[in-house]
């Protein structure tokens, strides 16, 4: 397997991991919205309510930066890192 192919393999598995986390917090948890809302969560808000107004949104922000960093590491590993600029 060539360098580029290996790079793409790793890139793809990162995609699957990222999308799996995304799926859980954008779709998965809301299958149990009614049950989850009965329980008190962070800062005293009901769990589901908290997820819709802060939780999921905040997790997406973190996930997005985490993904960017992981992908940069993968690019570096295979010598595809870009120089300079940020």
């Amino acid at each position: 397997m060539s360098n580029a192919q290996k790079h793409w393999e790793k890139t793809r598995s990162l995609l699957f991991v990222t999308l799996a986390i995304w799926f859980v917090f954008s779709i998965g948890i809301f299958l149990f919205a009614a049950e989850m809302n009965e329980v008190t969560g962070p800062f005293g808000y009901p769990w589901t309510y908290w997820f819709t107004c802060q939780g999921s949104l905040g997790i997406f922000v973190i996930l997005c930066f985490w993904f960017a960093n992981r992908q940069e590491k993968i690019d570096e590993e295979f010598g595809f890192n870009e120089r300079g600029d940020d």
Partner: protein
Amino acid sequence: MIKGKFIDNLPKVYGIYTGGFIGFIILMAIGEQMGMSAKAIGVAFVAFTIFIYALIGYLSRTAQADAYYVAGRQVPTVFNGMATAADWMSGASFVAMAGGIYFKGYGYMALLVGWTGGYILVATLLAPYLRKFGCYTVPDFVGTRYGGNLARLCAVIVLTVASFTYVTAQINATGTIASVALDIDFKYAVYIGLISILLCSMLGGMRAVTWTQVAQYIVLIIAYLLPIFWISNKMGAGFFPHFMLADEVARIGELEQQFGFVKNSAADLATVPKGLAGITKAHSAVNATPWAFISLALAMMMGTASLPHVMMRYFTTPSVKAARKSVGWSLFFIFLLYSSAPMLATLSKLSLIDPTLSTGIIGKSFAEVQSIDWFQNWNQANLMFISDFNGNGTLELNEFFMGGKAVVLATPEIAGLPYVISGLVAAGGMAAAMSTADGLILAIANAISHDVYYKMIDPKAETAKRLLVARVLLVVIGFAGATIAAMEIQGILGSVIWAFDFAMSGLFFPLVLGVWWKRANREGAIAGMVLGLASAIWYLVWVRTGGSGFLGLTQLTFGIFGAGVSLVAMVVVSLMTQAPDKATQKMVDEVRIPTGRTVTGK
């Protein structure tokens, strides 16, 4: 004061700008104390900010294609994040979102999840790859990846349908705000809004839009957050509302129990002015089925990843790496506003319905409510209405009606904040609507000038001529949008959501599979775009004309059906026709690697 290149001095430039804006707010507050009229403050806020944007637009003028189409590809990540956030958060997000949450609660909050979660799709599936591709517009990617003018044209058509649906709503919003703040007729205000929008983009294209959008983000986020923190502190609800409103949320639940949701008769409701609604749904309880919530969130997420005016913002970063980071920053800046909207809805609702608060009106006598100043103002503006359905002389929860916009526009006044805040909010709403409208009009005009005119009609055209065509189109599309907006066909939010559904139906899979599936070919992409968009339009018309729909897909989520058709059509047709040639396959390989020259060779 400022030496060297503009790009190197960005933090300083926008730091001074932010300081200047805060200084202006303080100046207006002093003016108010000294007897400046409310109307003068409103006019000053809107006029001053528009003047600044126009100035930035003028200073960013350019005669180079690279600067006009992609801002010279040198916008740093954080600033591109701010510009994208302004591009993204429309007049609807600013003015109508808190109102939607106020009235519909949980079911509506699917939009918050959808409009943020979509950025994960943007970051992982598309933005870095399209940046590597090096295209000027989204149809440019489709046209080059799949080859042929027909594919390019289809992409232009989908882009135009989706963006145009969206832009009329934005021009409408600028018109609404301009007409309130400047106190002129809506029909003329729409065109004042349009001219302000064009001032920002005409001379400098993407470069001018980028730097005005950053300025607009700063105005809109200050205008959104300042009143929320102030109101929360004034009500004693907590100095950092986001972490401290649990008691207030619980209290609203209690009051809902106490009052109950009394259903009004159809005859009674017929007397309520159009566009106003009462509180009929629980604030924090789960009031929608899992599928209703998930389908709406999913449609918005896929729509986010297909809207060209957002995607093209990531063409302006210096590198692929920067494009990825920039998505994170965009999402962060969007998060700041979206996580605040539910807090504003909570504060607004509690201040109106809690009888133990001095601002609460439920439970008071009609005569008393009608004598309140702010009630008279907003009643006159057609955003508040009360009617004694049961004739007991006391205002009940089901007898109070409000327009969605009032949550953002009226809450500061209800809470007794000085008028300077209302002026600030008007400027913020204007900034939100203008920045989105600019991005959209530019996306359409660029697609037509670059993809249709330059790539299909006259490939030998000189840069000066291309940019002239681009500018003429900008004006034409702007006026077309304003003319339709002046007819006031639908509410702000309805058409915004349709734009997402149209975009995802036609573009989501052709874009994603273009990167992630080498076997995808021209015939498949054309089938995907044409059948996707056509089936979406068919479904929307069917549901709007009394059709029952299926799978619980409504006129807000019909994009899921359209995108499904698009996926099936694209895969089936691709597999039935020839695989793409070697050159195309190599192009896809190139796109997947961050380093090296862009695919289009620029």
